[in-house]
Each structure stands twice: as structure tokens, then as C-alpha cells.
């Protein structure tokens, strides 16, 4: 191989993860921030489940239901997070947007090995923010791309 054709590749190891932290009742969850396309108030998003924003239609995603959390729609901090993985676009109603955070990879822990089934794919890991346990969710699961949707309460006692 000639020197001219040789490309010097520098691999930068990403030491931090950027996450959007949201709250459903007592549950704090996070998703990678690169999928966030917007955060709207319920008034801006409208009453219908589906939201069209900048020419893109975001389907209603009942993440609260999947987490087994009751969404308090009267909460003034409620927001609609527009999220996309490039192929699927979802509008996720959350009780509160806590904020965008940057955490060290070392501060992100895998789900304890006691959890042995599909939840290992749904939840990428956990971290601690403001003394709260935060579940880091898989974007594909958030967008409903990982199979059937079943509520938490129906699962844990089965």
C-alpha cells in the first residue's frame, strides 16, 4: 500500500453520554439526546396523539403505559418530547422534562443481572442524577420497535 493511500485514522473514545432526563411520577428515565427533535407544551402539540412538527409526523407513543406509570395530565410541567431514530418518529408525553445531562460512561451502570429477560434490551442501564435513580431506555424500545407492548404490572407478577 502506498503512503499516499494510507489514511491515518484517529479513534476518539467517547467518555460521556448525553441524555434527556424525563419524569413519569416517581420514575426518572433518560434517552440518548441525539434522537430528540423537539420538546413541546401540550398546547403546542395539540390534543390529538399524533403530532406534526416541521413537516414530520410523530406517532403517539404511550411510554408511561409501558413503564406502568400513571401520567398526570393535569401537571403544568407536562411536555411532549418528539423523538426519532431516523426511521420511526414518536411523540412521547412525559410528566416533566428534567433536562439534558452529560454523564461519564463510568457513571452509567448495566441493569443488575437479576433482571434476566427482555428488559435487558429495553433498558440500556442506569445512572444517578440529583440523587435519583434514572433508567436509561433503549430508543428502539421507546419507539415501540422491540415487539409487543405489555404493562409493567402485568409482567412483574407473572
Amino acid at each position, binding site marked *: 500500500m502506498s503512503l499516499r493511500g494510507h489514511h491515518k485514522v484517529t479513534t476518539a473514545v467517547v467518555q460521556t453520554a448525553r441524555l434527556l432526563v424525563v419524569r413519569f411520577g416517581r*420514575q426518572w428515565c433518560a434517552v440518548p439526546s441525539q434522537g430528540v427533535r423537539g420538546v413541546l407544551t401540550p398546547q403546542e402539540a395539540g390534543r390529538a396523539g399524533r403530532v406534526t412538527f416541521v413537516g414530520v409526523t410523530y406517532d403517539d407513543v404511550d411510554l408511561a403505559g409501558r413503564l*406502568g*406509570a400513571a401520567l398526570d395530565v393535569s401537571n403544568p410541567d407536562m411536555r411532549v418530547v418528539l423523538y426519532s431514530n431516523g426511521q420511526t418518529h414518536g411523540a412521547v408525553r412525559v410528566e416533566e422534562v428534567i433536562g439534558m445531562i452529560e454523564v461519564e460512561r463510568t457513571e452509567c451502570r448495566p441493569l443488575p443481572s437479576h433482571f434476566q429477560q427482555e428488559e435487558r434490551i429495553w433498558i440500556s442501564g442506569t445512572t444517578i442524577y440529583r440523587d435519583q435513580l434514572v*433508567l436509561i431506555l433503549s430508543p428502539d424500545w421507546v419507539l415501540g420497535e422491540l415487539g409487543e407492548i405489555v404493562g409493567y404490572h402485568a409482567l412483574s407478577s407473572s
Partner: protein
Amino acid sequence: MLRAARQQDQTVITKRAWNVVVFSVGGKKLAARTEDVGGVGPWIDPVPVPSRTPFVGAMLKREKEVMPVYDLATRLSREPEGDQLLCLVARHVDGPMAICIDGVIPSLHNVDIAQIAPSKRLDLETLGSFTDEGQEIDIVALQRLGRSRQDNLRS
């Protein structure tokens, strides 16, 4: 040689009895070997986690430690009793695991091995059972709690 024999005798003597912690879940008395218990403290409301693993559907944070919760009460079809519930930390093979128990302070017992009989129940991982004040108390195998249930589900 004599010294070795004496040590062997002592080992046999120490193994003749088990130290167990007796606690209760929904009024049902259970026991666990003391070495399988990481501690007992006040119960903290756990965070639900979407899960398909039977009886493992929440986590809690105690100071800097985060651990999964094993819902032993639901497995036994009971409800924890008491105003101030307690958290028993199990030394599970996969790592510490929290179990909600009744708000009755657990007690320590020394049980002669001769008093421990194989447990009759097949629905819970146990190391055996013993009788105390006319009541049969199962010794829960905290280290492998939930394992046989998951193995059954897989097979």
C-alpha cells in the same frame, strides 16, 4: 496430627448448628442463614422497572447503592404487614437484592442441624425447615432466590 484432629472436631462442632435470622412476610415466619443476609433497614419506596423476570420488577437506591427488589410477598401471595415495613438485603449470587418484609424486627436463632428437616414446599427455594414454638419455619435460600423459578420458565 493431634492438632489436625482437634481442628477437625471443632469444625464439626461449629457445623452442628446454623445461625438464622427469623423474619416474617405477610405474617408468615421465614428464616435465612445469617451469612445470606446483608442487613436489615427501613423500607424505601422502590422505583418500578418494566420487567419480564418474575418478581423482579423494581429497584431501590440506598445511599449510594442501587439494588433490584425481589417481591417475595407477591410470590407467597401475601401482603407485607406493619406500619413501618423493613428491607432485608439478601446476598444473592447475582449481587445484593432487597426484599420487603413485615415491620417486625427480625430475631436471631441458633438452630441445631438435627432439627432441620428437608422442606416440604416446592414453590420456594429453601435449605430446609425447622419447628419453633409449634410453627414450621422454612429457611429461604436467599443466595438462589428466584433461580429455580426462572430455570422452570426457561425449560
